[in-house]
């Protein structure tokens, strides 16, 4: 098991957002996490990356307990997150933002290569190397966030709604990219509102409802599940 | 302590609980000046209490830090305590401007041992008395020292904008007339005097008169000398303190001259000098003797049973007796007689302030 959550409870002040969830991700998998607004998907991501403390429960990475590890240490251990919304550094250029993605890496040659790869994936970023992150359009910022997370060459990549705000064509592309990097050996935890696509892509998936996991299974299983279809796929 | 006695002017009930107050800086940048005065008064009170152990007098201290802002509240405080029948101070002219009007409203007699601004005596304050000559004497004396002893051709006059410094500098300017080759002001608490130094330098004056206190004069002289301005530095009683040498550094302070309407401690009559040295382990500083005299006037009053402010006031007004510094008798404005005014000059030599000569008062 690459990453494992055991009975994780996270709360915001008095509001408990996760009521003890457990899930596991194997090396090389794409696991999707789906659920309605406010179900606690982002909270789960933040708990894994260390931005929110676990109230109770444990988090293991490669069998090691990282529950109390600082967020920046977890990056070194191989967890990289593309946060939801505008997680870019607004006052830094596109280039600087990307460079921060590999803050903990020191292999200059590989870094240059990875940068080229990101530029190939998102030519718009290459065009706007010198533009300040904060002045990029919503979708452009989303590209930057994903590109930056790729720069870390993580063991496990956490993607929080990567398709949000992207044009339809780009959404196709993003899912293709996820598949590709997974093919190269990166494990992916994917949060998506776009359940249809997420489930078709994922090896396995969990369904989160108001802070608890209510279902899990392979992507196909869940796609075929009538309850899931009704709630998340818009199949009336 | 919180009962509100509506009428502070009435006599205190008991006979042996009278207080006199010291009003001046005990902390703050110019504290040394206040402490000297406090010590002088303290010596008087302690001597009195030793002799009258059955009926002791308390010396209340009101530390104004020399700050006009704090003065009104302290004065109100004194006025509200009916046991206080006399005030030694306020020490500085600025705080006097702020406080004396309130003491006047409380009919609380004061004798300042140091506040030298001439106008203080002209505000119609019945409670005001001054144990020394004012700056209308000191100013001309300083001017004549600059003319006759320094033999300067061109004098740059600086003041610190306080009631005291400005008042005195104005007197000096008046007496110097055409010799004034430039003027400038500095602010209390200032430490950086580059701008003023530049002006002095550009003026090519050969003497400087500085009206103000030692806290600013010290670093000013230091910066002056660092900029290679070698004009003679002449200043006043506010600068007559070792704090000046400390601020300027021995080398820069060397040769500076200060004037003061105060007598050197060793010129005081009687055993004052020895008593003071014994009690405080050092020689009396500026205005120690004058403060001793001021306190003694009130102590004599208390001894004579004047325990109400009104009685004390008339007692002080009719006082006529020798003190250690002079013969004490106040005129109707609260000033001492012309003939009793002395102005001394002092020199900084080897880091010490040594007495120079007595300048004859000219005005």
């Amino acid at each position, binding site marked *: 098991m690459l990453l494992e959550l055991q009975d994780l409870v996270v709360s915001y002040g008095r509001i408990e957002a996760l009521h003890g969830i457990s899930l596991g991700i194997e090396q090389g998998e794409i696991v999707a996490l789906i659920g309605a607004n406010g179900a606690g998907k982002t909270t789960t991501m933040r708990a894994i990356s*260390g*931005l929110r403390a676990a109230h109770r429960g444990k988090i293991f990475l490669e069998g090691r307990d990282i529950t109390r590890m600082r*967020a*920046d*240490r977890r*990056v*070194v251990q191989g967890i*990289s*997150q593309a*946060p939801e919304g*505008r*997680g*870019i*550094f*607004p*006052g*830094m250029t596109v280039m*600087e933002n990307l*460079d*921060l993605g590999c*803050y*903990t890496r020191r292999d200059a040659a590989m870094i240059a290569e990875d940068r080229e790869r990101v530029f190939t994936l998102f030519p718009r970023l290459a065009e706007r190397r010198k533009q*300040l992150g*904060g*002045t990029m359009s919503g979708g452009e910022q989303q590209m930057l966030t994903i590109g*930056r997370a790729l720069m*870390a060459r993580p063991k496990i990549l956490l993607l929080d709604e990567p398709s949000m705000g992207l044009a339809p064509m780009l959404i196709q592309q993003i899912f293709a990219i996820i598949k590709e990097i997974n093919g190269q050996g990166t494990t992916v935890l994917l949060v998506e509102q776009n359940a249809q696509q997420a489930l078709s892509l994922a090896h396995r998936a969990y369904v989160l409802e108001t802070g608890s996991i209510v279902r899990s299974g392979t992507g196909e299983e869940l796609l075929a599940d009538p309850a899931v279809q009704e709630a998340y796929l818009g199949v009336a | 302590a919180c009962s509100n006695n509506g009428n502070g002017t009435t006599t205190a009930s008991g006979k042996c609980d009278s207080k006199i107050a010291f009003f001046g800086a005990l*902390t*703050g*940048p110019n*504290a040394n000046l206040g402490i000297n005065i406090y010590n002088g008064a303290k010596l008087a009170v302690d001597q009195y209490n030793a002799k009258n152990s059955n009926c002791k007098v308390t010396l209340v201290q009101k530390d104004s830090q020399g700050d006009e802002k704090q003065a009104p509240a302290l004065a109100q405080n004194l006025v509200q305590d009916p046991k206080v029948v006399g005030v030694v101070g306020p020490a500085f002219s600025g705080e006097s401007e702020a406080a004396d009007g309130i003491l006047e409203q409380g009919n609380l007699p004061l004798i300042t041992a140091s506040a030298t601004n001439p106008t203080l005596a002209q505000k119609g304050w019945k409670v005001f008395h001054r144990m020394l000559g004012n700056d209308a004497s000191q100013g001309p004396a300083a001017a004549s020292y600059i003319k006759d002893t320094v033999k300067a051709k061109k004098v740059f006059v600086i003041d610190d*904008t306080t009631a005291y410094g400005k008042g005195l500098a104005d007197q000096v300017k008046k007496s110097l007339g055409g010799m004034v080759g430039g003027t*400038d*002001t*500095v*602010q209390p*608490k200032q*430490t*950086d005097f580059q*701008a*003023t130094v*530049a*002006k002095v330098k*550009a003026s090519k004056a050969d003497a400087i008169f500085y009206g103000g206190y030692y*806290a600013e004069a*010290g*670093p000013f002289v*230091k*910066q002056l000398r*660092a*900029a*290679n301005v070698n004009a003679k530095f002449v200043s006043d009683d506010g600068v007559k303190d070792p*704090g000046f040498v*400390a*601020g*300027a*550094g*021995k*080398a820069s302070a060397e040769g500076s001259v200060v004037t003061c309407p105060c007598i050197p401690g060793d010129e005081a009559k009687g055993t004052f000098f020895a008593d003071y040295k014994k009690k405080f382990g050092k020689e009396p500083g500026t205005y120690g003797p004058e403060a001793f005299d001021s306190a003694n006037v009130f102590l004599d009053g208390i001894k004579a049973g004047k325990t109400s402010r009104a009685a004390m006031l008339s007692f002080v007004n009719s006082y006529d007796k020798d003190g250690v510094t002079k013969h004490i008798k106040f005129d109707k404005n609260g000033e001492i007689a012309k003939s009793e005014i002395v102005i001394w000059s002092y020199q900084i030599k080897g*880091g010490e302030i040594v007495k120079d000569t007595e300048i004859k008062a000219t005005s």
Partner: protein
Amino acid sequence: MNFEFLFANIGDLTVTGLSQGAIYALIALGYTLVYGLLKLINFAHSEVFMMGTFGALFAWQLVGLHENNPIPSVPMMIVYLLVGLVGAAVWSGVTALAVEFVAYRPLRRRNAPRLVFLITAIGASLAISEAVGIATGRQQFGMPDLFKTTTLVTIGDAHITNLDLGVIVAAIVMMVVLDQFINRTRLGRGIRAVAQDSDTAALMGINKNRVIVLTFVLGGVMAGAAALLYNLKIGVTRADIGFLLGIKAFTAAVLGGIGNLRGALLGGLALGLVENYGSALFGTSWRDVVAFAVLVIILMFRPTGLLGESLGKARA
């Protein structure tokens, strides 16, 4: 208005203005660094500086250099300068760290609103200057003379002394080094990342607290350097000198564009010049009025200072 005096002495006024401004600039760097990082006006920075002036003094006393000692030889002077610098930098740095640990870090833990930091900063500033005031009896302390001030070069009517030149060069060199550090190095990039979004910075693997500590130390060391130069130039120190100078330096930082290192230098030098010209023109007592009036006017036309913000957020 005394134009005659201004023009007659424009050269000297420029030189003293610049050296004055250089000290402002070095203190301003500390404000700008911390502001850029934490969006916090570190009011206590003035006290960090003040401690530096005492730090140098103590260091000198420790090696037996006292106020009234004769001027030392050149090699000894260099030694003393270094000793003073170390003393000032250490004291200032330690003070800066103490402020961070006592007054700011506990608040960050509690996610306190920004304004609250301002108040603890004020509290820290008051406490430090009062504590030093009590410890020193609120006395003034004179500095030993390390060298004789002499005019090195005269350009036109401007007399450039060894002191002025040293101060100006020191400030510029330090600013450039700091600027390179922040903009070129990996650690500097980390500082900027935390400045903009500390959560996301953690996701990049940046240790936020280490960055903050580093920044306070850097600011403290700059203030220490400023303190040494101040000691040489002004010659006395006192527990309460920080306040006014701190406000001036903060003004300089804002003038240049707070959060912008180059702005701090530019703002400092500009403020020094404006003050000197202004006091020549209107009289020394109007010096600060001129300085603040110019600040207001400049901000009216350039609402984010001469160079704008850069360490912190640009318009998002």
